[in-house]
């Protein structure tokens, strides 16, 4: 296994990238980081700066203008990193799907490594997802999408979003 990936799985610094979510996923994410669930047991800590981040927790959808900012942020994360979509919104948009600020699901223009379904997912579900991602990374079944070849996708989508805005 790759040394960088091995080191990554032992010390995950989490950054919370909230879109315009309904706030339930945000609350569940904070719940998962409370002493009750004690994620520091697995070396997981919450950080405030995106430069310190290893995992981005994306919740909610982004409208057209916010999508550009989200991609700018994504380009600032030091590699290798992971992106986790929390809740159903980053995948499908769920209840925001027919609203006036709906553009398209964040999974169309962000390279999301894993989705945690639920509306909202329980802290147990988030922890279980993180454990599965870590196991996948260690066994080599999962390669962070930021390290894969399809890197051009994000830039292309960003210009598309900018054109339509």
């Amino acid at each position, binding site marked *: 296994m790759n040394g*960088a990936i091995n080191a990554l799985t032992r010390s995950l610094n989490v950054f919370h990238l909230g879109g315009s979510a309904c706030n339930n996923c945000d609350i569940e994410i904070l719940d998962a980081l409370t002493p009750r669930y004690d994620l*520091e047991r697995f070396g997981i800590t919450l950080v405030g700066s995106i430069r310190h981040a290893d995992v981005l927790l994306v919740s909610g959808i982004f409208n057209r203008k916010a999508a550009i900012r989200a991609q700018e942020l994504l380009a600032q994360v*030091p590699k290798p990193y992971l992106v986790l979509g929390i809740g159903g919104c980053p995948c499908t948009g769920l209840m925001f799907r027919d609203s006036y600020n709906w553009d398209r699901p964040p999974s169309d223009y962000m390279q999301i490594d894993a989705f945690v379904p639920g509306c909202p997912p329980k802290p147990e579900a988030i922890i279980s997802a993180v454990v599965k991602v870590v196991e996948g990374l260690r066994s080599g079944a999962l390669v962070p999408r930021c390290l894969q070849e399809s890197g051009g996708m994000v830039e292309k989508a960003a210009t598309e979003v900018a054109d339509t805005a």
Partner: protein
Amino acid sequence: MKGNMVLLEFLLFPGLLFTAVAGLLTSWVDRKVTALVQMRVGPPFLQPFHDIRKLLYKETCVPEGGAIGLFLLAPLLGLAGVTLASMILWRTLLNAEATFVGDLIVLVYLLVMPALGVMLGSFASRNPLASLGGSREVKLMIAYELPLVLAILVPVVHANSIRLGDLLTGQAPVTSLSGVLALLVCISCMQAKLTIVPFDMPEAETELTGGALIEYSGPPLAMFKLTRAMMLFTMPVLLVVLFFGGLVSGPGWWPALIGFLLWFVLVAITIVIRNTTPRVRIDQAVRFFWGPVSIVAALAVTLAWLGF
């Protein structure tokens, strides 16, 4: 030949490698005790080492338009400063005769380097939040350096010498009233020098989102974290040398054990203060250090001079 030995001492023992390992173990103790205070299990034993290893593998992002050279050199400054400081301290502890006159002054200057590194790095990164954190670091340093230097004067007055070796072999200053007062001043200044709660406003995670270190990633960030861990180890050692001199020097394992226990008590006091107090504002911190703490420090120096 002698130059090679000094280089070896700087890089291995008691310099970089030894201080880094000891510092990371101390930061594990810090995190574990914090976890126990909050009634959780806490991080695994080697977690600080994993954190540093991961950061060494990460990409280094450089902010656009920042002073790149200074931005990348600043972490080295702090690391070199704390390594040299620890080396001088441990050479004294291993052999009280091996030091030079005035090494305490050199030590005080070297221990300023980590804070200086954070300042330069934050101002070089061209980030408004980082420069806010950097300016708070400047103010905090101006605040705590005065009482700290005054308190360090007390053991010097007691031993009538400014050589660390003489401080170590003389009677422990803490057995006198002025020594106790100076020790209390030093403990509060240590908290600020390590920039941990209640004096962590340069990094203030909730308002400045990482503050001074906001733009750092990868190996430079690892260096800053290592510097902080090494400071957490070195500052209590300095206090033990300054205030418990006679108790921890001498042949045999008994003084070494007492020294270790005293060091651990000082670290524990730091961790308990960190876990039981909220962060104060920068103006409150300056008022605290220039007001009561400086007055107590001046009182301690006067008492020491009068022979108490």
